């Protein structure tokens, strides 16, 4: 039904926590996610189609406003609407990224389970350096709305693929020494503060990450990856502000 989220703790211990049950295997997971978009049966064909979808959703080069699934579905997030008024200004204020420029290497903490590789995407740093290029700004929403939006991200992650997300929360970090992988996350709590959800991110500037438990603001591109037969959501190319 949706992606899983790690249970983030402010220590080094790593635990796994399904936000939504229903993921039993990698193929099943991919199929479920892809079926929502394309209703196909063959996972390879779906993967290609989804990859194309994902690439198409990773931002147009001249506007900085990414084309997200919600826009395609004729529904809008808060920030879609906020951005609508700013779109015209962006077209004039944001310069078109140089197509010949070399994409910034993205630290990949884990091997993807089949999602398109980052170098195929346009240079998103130009987008990330401006607040105008953000599709979903969780920092301006009320705590109730933030929680609901993050829940929606985990329930229907395919709707958010390629969207530029800005979030603020409690910084958390984990390291899997056996795999040599580091995980960074932003913990977002609900209005009653009893429920929290961790959104993982892959920082471009890890040196800017605060100490554990401190507040962190991150801007990155929403993506899904697979690990240990489970799908996880993450923000790639994340800039820690």
């Amino acid at each position, binding site marked *: 039904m949706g992606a899983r989220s790690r249970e983030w703790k402010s220590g080094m211990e790593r635990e796994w*926590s399904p936000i939504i*049950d229903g993921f039993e295997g990698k193929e099943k997971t991919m199929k479920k996610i892809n079926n929502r978009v394309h209703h196909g049966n063959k996972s390879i064909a779906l993967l290609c189609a989804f990859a194309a979808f994902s690439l198409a959703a990773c931002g147009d080069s001249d506007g900085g406003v990414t084309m997200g699934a*919600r826009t395609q579905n004729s529904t809008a997030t808060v920030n879609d609407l906020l951005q609508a008024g700013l779109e015209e200004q962006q077209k004039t204020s944001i310069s078109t990224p140089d197509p010949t420029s070399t994409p910034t290497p993205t630290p990949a903490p884990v091997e993807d389970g089949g999602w398109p590789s980052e170098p195929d995407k346009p240079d998103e740093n130009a987008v990330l350096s401006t607040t105008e290029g953000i599709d979903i700004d969780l920092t301006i929403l009320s705590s*109730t709305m*933030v929680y*609901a939006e993050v829940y929606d991200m985990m329930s229907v992650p395919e709707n958010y693929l390629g969207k530029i997300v800005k979030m603020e929360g409690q910084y958390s970090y984990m390291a899997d020494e056996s795999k040599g992988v580091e995980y960074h996350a932003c913990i977002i709590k*609900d*209005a*009653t503060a009893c*429920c929290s959800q961790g959104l993982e991110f892959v920082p471009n500037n890890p040196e800017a990450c605060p100490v554990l438990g401190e507040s962190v603001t991150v801007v990155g591109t929403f993506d899904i990856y697979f690990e240990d037969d489970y799908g996880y959501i993450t923000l790639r190319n994340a800039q820690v502000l």
Partner: protein
Amino acid sequence: MDKLAEYLQIPFVQHALIAGVLIALCSSLLGVTLVLKRFSFIGDGLSHVAFGIMAIAAVLRLSNDMLLVMPLTILCAVLLLRTGQNTKIKGDAAIAMISVGALAFGYLLMNIFSTSGNLSGDVCSTLFGSTSILTISKKEVLVCIILSIVVVVSFILFYNKIFAVTFDEGFARASGVKAGLYNLIIAVITAVIIVLAMNLVGSLLISALIIFPALSAMRLFKSFKSVTICSAVLSLICALVGILISILTGTPVGSTIVATDAAGFLICWIVGEGLGAKK
């Protein structure tokens, strides 16, 4: 207002408003009957039963817990409403017993056979409905719409019989009304509403949805019909205002709706007193 207009265009906010309004409408319709039949607390009891059954569904890893929660809650509702009158364990005692028993049993099960990494969060969300209504899916909204239509249509169809059974069950029986059948219908509808309302305000706060609108309306009107209509209108307004305040200010949805209902009661009480003084 701009922010509110933007929020209203988000799909999950629209889902929450649709479901919230429908649940409020259904609960207020039946609330009048339950309050008059001295069964105000049945909502609390049944919601705790539903909580316990949800815990069982979680332990059994059922993907759709509604299939288990709904029939078992209906069964409990029937037992509670049927045995309330002529058994050794009277209505209030039976409700209290089942209520706390199911709550404790459910929490115990969830602890022993925990299937989630965030048990306290799950329990908190289920009990207080902090954000549940904002996280319901399209499918759940559809179920909510269908069940709400069933509830409203049933209430309208059996309005006269429910009225008769509510005020004087003995007289209704004597005049040929199948009181048992209509009590059963009331019990089933109550259970359906309780299960639906758990998404809106959580299981601990459901009684507020049933009691407040009915009592508020009773401050202003005296006839069954007027009270029922006023109760429905008040409940709709309070649910709508509560959800909107919640998403705008970031307060928990369930408790904000209940606080709005309480404020509505206070206003109605003051207005009712004022009108009474004039007469």
